[in-house]
């Protein structure tokens, strides 16, 4: 018979006390697991979200705020940058450094999901992970010549119930407040899930976004994000449309008449008649930039600083900002939570020690019987240590299940608050540390009762009544 079995039988004999101590260990381990899993998934999700772009360019201000807004759709929408700066970035001195630049405009929401004005390139050309482009689960991408078309992320589609062919009216503001309702957009596509924050966003044609924010001059004070009121153009605004933008504008103009009416009126829901918005009136929240892969390494490193210096904007590397956020603020919070959870595990471990130690006086007779059958002192010591390890590992295994269950319970809340989807089945490699950790803890807390067992006087204990 193995010593494990002898230890297990001893646990069975004190089933209630053993179950309670194992349960307290389970609670501690569950917390540790929940902290590890949730942090791991958040870390992974944030880093994944930052992978698609090399740089985020936006108005000067907090770099982290810019990244959180542009990439994760979190926090307050920062100030906008001028369209002129955008044009200078993509068509000016940095044109050769940039492979792809996707402008985005923020400021509206639909049922709490951010409505983002952008271009069709977002889904036609951009990769959200290395080698992985956006795919449409239903419908198609919006067309640049159809300003009132929209494509929605997988989660946003599920939560809002919007389907291809349906319309929705964005509301002013970045939260689910009841603000001013705008003209409707028509959903033409639903994105396949990507595991990025974009699953929770609604993307509309940027031209349409500008149009719904167009206000008469006397209503200029109510101009919305992404738009400057007439007469409030950026000081750097040039009356001449930018070179690269020209190309796009020219393309658009092919579909619009001089009055800004679509050339193919009635062809698509998005082809409403809208006046062409002068570039001077346009603003952009941020530009998602993929740099030229052939760029010299030194230039690549210096690019953010050069952009910051040459243009009245800031360029930040999202991965850098997220690394700082995760390793700085989030990392410290996780460390504190982890320390607290580990302390709970240690307290549970002490509970195991107390439980086994208290049982020793009742078990002296049994220990003496086993010794009389030929077991050495060290064998008895090992049996007690194994008992402690079984309780810790058993409790740990239950805690592992509870921890992932807890993660599953918290997942909707985390998704609601942060947009990060956490699956209870996501296991983190760092969870493996629990096994040697629990064994070491069990060996430590089991040592005292094991020594008591070791010192049992066999002859004396055999004579005493069981």
């Amino acid at each position, binding site marked *: *018979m193995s010593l494990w*079995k*002898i230890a297990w*039988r*001893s646990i*069975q*004999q004190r089933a209630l006390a053993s179950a309670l101590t194992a349960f307290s260990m389970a609670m501690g381990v569950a917390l540790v697991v929940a902290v590890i899993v949730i942090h791991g998934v958040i870390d992974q999700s944030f880093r994944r979200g930052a992978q698609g772009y090399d740089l985020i360019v936006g108005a000067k201000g907090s770099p982290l705020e810019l990244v959180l807004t542009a990439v994760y759709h979190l926090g307050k929408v920062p100030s906008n940058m001028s369209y002129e700066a955008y044009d200078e970035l993509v068509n000016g001195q940095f044109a050769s450094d940039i492979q792809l630049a996707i402008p985005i405009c923020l400021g509206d929401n639909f049922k709490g999901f951010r409505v983002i004005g952008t271009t069709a390139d977002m889904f036609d050309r951009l990769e959200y992970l290395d080698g992985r482009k956006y795919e449409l689960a239903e419908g198609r991408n919006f067309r640049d010549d159809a300003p009132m078309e929209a494509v929605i992320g997988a989660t946003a589609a599920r939560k809002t119930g919007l389907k291809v062919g349906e319309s929705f009216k964005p509301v002013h503001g970045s939260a689910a407040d009841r603000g001013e309702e705008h003209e409707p957009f028509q959903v033409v596509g639903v994105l396949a899930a990507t595991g990025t924050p974009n699953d929770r966003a609604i993307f509309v044609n940027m031209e349409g976004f500008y149009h719904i924010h167009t206000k008469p001059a006397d209503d200029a004070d109510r101009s919305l994000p992404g738009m400057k009121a007439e007469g409030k153009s950026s000081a750097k605004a040039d009356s001449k449309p930018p070179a690269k933008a020209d190309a796009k504008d020219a393309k658009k103009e092919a579909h619009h008449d001089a009055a800004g009416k679509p050339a193919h009126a009635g062809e698509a829901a998005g082809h409403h008649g809208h006046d062409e918005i002068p570039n001077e009136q346009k603003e952009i929240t941020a530009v998602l930039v993929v740099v030229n892969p052939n760029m010299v390494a030194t230039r690549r490193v210096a690019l953010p600083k050069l952009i910051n210096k040459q243009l009245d904007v800031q360029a930040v590397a999202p991965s850098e900002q997220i690394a700082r956020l995760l390793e700085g603020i989030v990392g410290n919070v996780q460390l504190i939570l982890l320390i607290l959870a580990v302390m709970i595990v240690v307290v549970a471990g002490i509970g195991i020690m107390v439980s086994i130690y208290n049982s020793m006086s009742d078990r002296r*007779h*049994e220990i003496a*019987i*086993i*010794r*009389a*059958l*030929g*077991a*050495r*002192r*060290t*064998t008895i010591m090992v049996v007690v240590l194994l008992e402690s390890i079984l309780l810790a590992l058993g409790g740990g295994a239950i805690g592992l299940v509870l921890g992932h269950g807890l993660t599953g319970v918290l997942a909707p809340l985390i998704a609601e608050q942060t947009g990060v989807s956490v699956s209870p089945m996501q296991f983190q490699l760092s969870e493996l540390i629990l096994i040697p950790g629990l064994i070491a803890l069990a060996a430590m807390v089991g040592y005292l009762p094991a020594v008591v067992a070791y010192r049992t006087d*066999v*002859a004396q204990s*055999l*004579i005493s*009544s*069981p």
Partner: protein
Amino acid sequence: MLLQLKDVTKSFSQPDGTALPILDIPEFTVDAGEQVVMVGRSGCGKTTLLHVIAGIGRPTSGRVKIDGWDIALMAESEVDQFRAERIGYVFQTFNLLPSFTALENVLLGMTFGRLRPDRERAKTLLKRVGLEHRLTHKPPMLSVGEQQRVAVARALANRPQLILADEPTANVDVGNQQQVIDLLRETCQEEKVALIIVTHAPEVAEQFGRIEYLEQINRVRAGR
């Protein structure tokens, strides 16, 4: 000769620091396969003697040789190993472990020796004592007589050379006493195992060819 006790003394320390002598046995021997009954009144040192022979308690002085090995000179762990492989013990109160089944209790008797526990032998022994239908029953589910039979099977499990039985019928009802004695004697005979039974029951003692009175072989008796 299987067992030889030579000038064995055993005393315990008293709270006032003086020694309380229990045993003083100049000579005691048992041959291989021999069956001996040791008779003595309560408190005369019968259990202490068995503990000394089993190596559970060390003698204060003297030699305890079993099959040529002086266990009084061995390290404690060596004595444990020796006991696990060569000695079987039947306790007055059976001393079965309550959370183990009958089969597991017998297997426990084979666990601490060098050989691997033999499940088939454990089953055979339980069958031999008439408990083949009680293999998975735990002691609280067994009658007193059945518990003592499991204890006998456990004592035989490690193929010992010597079985020590400490008043094995003391807690068994009259109807089962003879069964237990017969079982011990027959199985020891079959397995060619020497048997030392300690008892204070004359009806048990008179069945054995060799009866030893502890008061006669223990010189401490005169002073107690």
